[in-house]
Every structure is written in structure tokens, then in C-alpha cells.
């Protein structure tokens, strides 16, 4: 009897493990395919062989500039920002136990944006300063929101409301800065309203790449603890999770990633919000979905950028496309959450 149970538990567990591996690999393949398309497509379409030779450092007439200087940084910006938004968003959603509580809604990306825009327009600062400022902006926003919502008793509802209030203020700041920044041309300004991969350069990408590469393993290591946190503060503690330390590490690393991504591409709408639920749907519950969520983020950003570049007569920045793609899902999610009465 017991043995049957053991076998059946083993069986369903292995099934899900297989599903996890298959889904993750498929997502990785899709991301890879999108990366290749990003490099191949453009005003001139270069064959895979040319692209490959450029990547290997060979000089190919025409292709070297288009692929190496323009398309490659654009693609890399999409990959790393997509991963940062996807994974970071998933962590926030899981930790706050509310799919709507993501960095876009509670003002964290607005904090990073505001700091970055300030540095660009008022201080005319360079990449390093912008990166540092956007990280500080993001972290400061988190601290303020957390501090204000702690009050007599911490509650997630309060945190969300306060975050929305802070968001409103920061958006006003960004709007004002964009207004006084007359000398900046409008398309560049639009990046800070909706996110765009336009004009990504190798040297501006570096901070984001470094941070994502450093913090991803840390996040993956703490993924198991995140699963336990899902059961609530008390259950997690009694399972041996140091909840305060875990939360701190998870928040700091995901905010770092999100802030740098925001500084590089602007707040790409809804990626942080969509990736987690999509990954969860694909993989199923019971696993830490940080990696799949990051991969979904990459796919979303790259696919949306391709659509924005080539599907219409006008070129749209990636944030507009993700915004429009994300909208129906957001509405669906709101309706479902309200029906279930989880709020």
C-alpha cells in the first residue's frame, strides 16, 4: 500500500520534472531562434552564415556594421533586459503573493526611470552614473514603499496602494523632466515612457550584463526558499527558512536587475508582469519558475521588438507592442482574481 503511494508520488514528480526540463529547453530554443532573427533581419537580410562569420570576428562587407554594431547590441539589450524583467517580476509576484504586485505597478520601475531621466536631462551624465542612479532610484523606492507600508502591521494591500501613490508622483516627475528637456528629441524621450531597444550600444550594456550574470545564480539558489515563502511567513520559518534574510536577498537582487534593465531600455511595459504567469502556466505549479520566467521575458521582448520593427509601416518601440499584447491578459487576470475574491 505504502509502496504504491511512493511509486505514484515518484511517478508524478518525475513527470513534472520532465515537463519542467522540456518547457525550459523549448523556451531556450525559442529565445535562441529569436536572437538569430534579430541578427538576420533588418533593411538588408543577411544569411545565417554571414551573421555567424561576423560574430566570429570576421570582416564581412556591409554585414559587419549592420550586424555587429547595430543589431547585436539591440539583441543583447533585449535578451538581458527581458531576462531581468521576467525573473525579477516573477520574484516580486511570488513574494507578494499577488500577480498584480509587480515592479511596474508599485512604482519601482518608475523610481529607476525617474532617476535615469534626471541624470540624462539635468546632469547630462554618462552611462555609469545613469546605471548607478537608476539602481539607487529603484532601491530607494522599494525602501520608501516598504517603510511606509510597514506601519503597525504589514499588509500587502497597503503596500500596493502606497506603491501606486508613489508611482503617481514619480510619473509626474518623469513627465516634468521630459517637458523641460526640450533639446532631447521626442523619440528618445518616449523610451522613458514605454521602453525601447533603439540605440542600444555595447558600452552602455555592460552594467546590465554584469549584474544579470552575477545575480542569476544567486536567485536560482534561493528559488527553493522562495517556494517555501509562498506558504506564508510562519510556515516558511517553521520549515527552516530564514525569512527576513531570504526576502532581503531576493528583493535586492531582483531590484538591481530590474533597475539596470530600466536604465538600459526604459520600462518595457508588462514584461515583468506577464512572464511569471505565462511561465507558471507552461511549467505548472510546485517548481521555482525563475529560469522559465526569465526565458519567457526574453522571448516576449525579442518577439515584440521584431513585431514593432517589421510588422507595421511605422516602427514602434518594443514597449508599445508588449503593452498592447499584455493588456488583454491583464484584464483577464484582474477579472479572475476578483471573481475568486483573493483581494
Amino acid at each position: 500500500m505504502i509502496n504504491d503511494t511512493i511509486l505514484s508520488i515518484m511517478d508524478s514528480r518525475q513527470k513534472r520534472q520532465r515537463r519542467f526540463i522540456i518547457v525550459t529547453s523549448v523556451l531556450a530554443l525559442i529565445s535562441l531562434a529569436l536572437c538569430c532573427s534579430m541578427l538576420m533581419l533588418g533593411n538588408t537580410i543577411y544569411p545565417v552564415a554571414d551573421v555567424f562569420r561576423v560574430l566570429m570576428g570576421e570582416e564581412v562587407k556591409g554585414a559587419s556594421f549592420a550586424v555587429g554594431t547595430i543589431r547585436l547590441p539591440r539583441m543583447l539589450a533585449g535578451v538581458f533586459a527581458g531576462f531581468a524583467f521576467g525573473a525579477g517580476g516573477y520574484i516580486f509576484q511570488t513574494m507578494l503573493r499577488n500577480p498584480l504586485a509587480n515592479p511596474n505597478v508599485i512604482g519601482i520601475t518608475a523610481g529607476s526611470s525617474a532617476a535615469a531621466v534626471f541624470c540624462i536631462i539635468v546632469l547630462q551624465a554618462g552611462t555609469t552614473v545613469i546605471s548607478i542612479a537608476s539602481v539607487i532610484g529603484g532601491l530607494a523606492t522599494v525602501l520608501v514603499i516598504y517603510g511606509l507600508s510597514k506601519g503597525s502591521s504589514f499588509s500587502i494591500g497597503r503596500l500596493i496602494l502606497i506603491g501606486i501613490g508613489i508611482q503617481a508622483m514619480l510619473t509626474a516627475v518623469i513627465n516634468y523632466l521630459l517637458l523641460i528637456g526640450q533639446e532631447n528629441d521626442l523619440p528618445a524621450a518616449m523610451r522613458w515612457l514605454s521602453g525601447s531597444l533603439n540605440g542600444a550600444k555595447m558600452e552602455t550594456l555592460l552594467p546590465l550584463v554584469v549584474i544579470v550574470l552575477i545575480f542569476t545564480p544567486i536567485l536560482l539558489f534561493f528559488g527553493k526558499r522562495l517556494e517555501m515563502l509562498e506558504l506564508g511567513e510562519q510556515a516558511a520559518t517553521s520549515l527552516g527558512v530564514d525569512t527576513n534574510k531570504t526576502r532581503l536577498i531576493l528583493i535586492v537582487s531582483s531590484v538591481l536587475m530590474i533597475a539596470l534593465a530600466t536604465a538600459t531600455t526604459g520600462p518595457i511595459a508588462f514584461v515583468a508582469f506577464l512572464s511569471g504567469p505565462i511561465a507558471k502556466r507552461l511549467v505548472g505549479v510546485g517548481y521555482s519558475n525563475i529560469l522559465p520566467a526569465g526565458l519567457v521575458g526574453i522571448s516576449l521582448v525579442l518577439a515584440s521588438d521584431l513585431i514593432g520593427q517589421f510588422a507595421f509601416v511605422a516602427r514602434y518601440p518594443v514597449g508599445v507592442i508588449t503593452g498592447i499584447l499584455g493588456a488583454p491578459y491583464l484584464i483577464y487576470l484582474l477579472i479572475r482574481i476578483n471573481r475568486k475574491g483573493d483581494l
Partner: protein
Amino acid sequence: MKPTHTFQAESITAGYDKKTILHDISIAIPSNKISIIIGANGCGKSTLLKTMARLIKPTSGQISLDGKPIHKIPPKHLARVLGLLPQSPIVPEGITVADLVGRGRFPHHTFMKGWSKKDYEAVAEAMDIMNITEFADRNIDELSGGQRQRVWIAMALAQQTDILFLDEPTTYLDITYQVEILDMLTDLNRKYGTTIVMVLHDINLSARYADHIFALNKGKLVAEGTPSEVITSSLIKDIFNLNCKVIEDPVSDSPSVVPIGRHHNKSISISENPVIV
């Protein structure tokens, strides 16, 4: 049989924010027994349980397991000896029964090691004890309150701790399920010698199922001992401000509390109860 542990709280004071709820409580949990903490609402029984299970940090005093202060034991190590089922844990959306029970194995895992045979055995056994094997692949959302509570207890069992704390495990359940769960916990104690400490609302069920009772009043320990030593009409009057008569439970030999209100009293006056006219 589970090994014997000494688990002690020495003069702990604790509370939330600035409000002190527990005043200078010292208790020693009897090993391999079922202990039940009773008291009126707001007397601090849940707070005491949470403080002992390191969910609340005491402002003064010390809690020790086998002579070692619990905050000096690494969290995962402690979680292999001491488990707690909180009053209202959160169900992650869409999780299956076997999955949730499996999360109880977290403290036994190390970074590199995946699931071993021992983990599967522990989960299967826990589900067997709580009689939820048939639900293994079901979604928790589909279960009734009583079944759900059994799943949570199974998760705590899969943790395979020697000591198990439960915060009101029978609240909101029908009387049938209350008895069922208490019976299962008693099985667990008899079969494995697991030390069980819980907070219960119902005095009569506490008196029947406890080996040892701690009675709390306004954040202080007022009595402890076997049910028949502790449950007296004067204690009930003290902690619940209720007149009552304590009789022998017709089913078991434990004491049973029969409350006395202002109405429906037989004309014969009962000595313990000065009827106010």
C-alpha cells in the same frame, strides 16, 4: 520511537510591537507526550506557541532545545527537530496535495541533493497517516476544510520532526473532523512518540486528549499538570470567568466542564455555584 528531548522556555516575555502579551513564563514541555495550552481569547496562548517555535522573538528570557538556545541552532537543523503548523498557512495557487506535503521535506534537503528514497517514503507515510493518499494528485482548492487541514498536518508530518507544534488545528472544523484530527494526532503520538504541543479552543476536547495541560490567563501561566489536576471549577472561573461544574467525562475518565449560566439551572443549588438571584 522518537528520541527524548528537553524543550524549555525560561522566564520569557514576548509580544507584538510595543504590546507585551506574555509575562515571565517558564515551562518545560514533557517529551513524547501530548500537551495542550488552554486559556481565554487573547490570553496569549498562540503567542506562547509561536514564541516557542521561534516565530516571535522574546524580548527577554530564553528558549532552549536540549540545553541549546534555539536562536543559536541553524534554522534548517532546528526545522528537522521542531515543526509548527501555523493557524492560517497560505495555499499556493494550483498546487497538488502530494506537492504541498512534499514541501515539508525542505529542511532535509541540501543544495546539491535532489529527492531521495527517504523523502518519498516520508511523504507517502505522512499522507497515509492523515488518510489523504487518495487525494495525492488532486488540487488543494478542490478539497473541503477538514481534508485541507489534514493535508497541512501531513506536510508538518513529512517534516518528520520529533516535536510538533500546532496552532488551533481544529478551528473552523465540524465536530466530526475535530475528533478525527485529534484521534490522528493521538495515533501519531502513540505510534512514534512524537511530542505534540497544541493550542485548542475546546476545553472538553483538551481535557480528553491532553496528557498535560498548560493553563494561561492574561499572559501568565496559572496552572499545569494532568487534566484532572488542572481542570477545576475554580480554575475555569479564574481564566474564563465562567461558573461551571466539573464532572467526570462519561466516555473517558477525563474531567468535563459543564457551564452554568443564569437560566436553565435545576432548582437544587449547586455548592460550587452561588446562584445570584
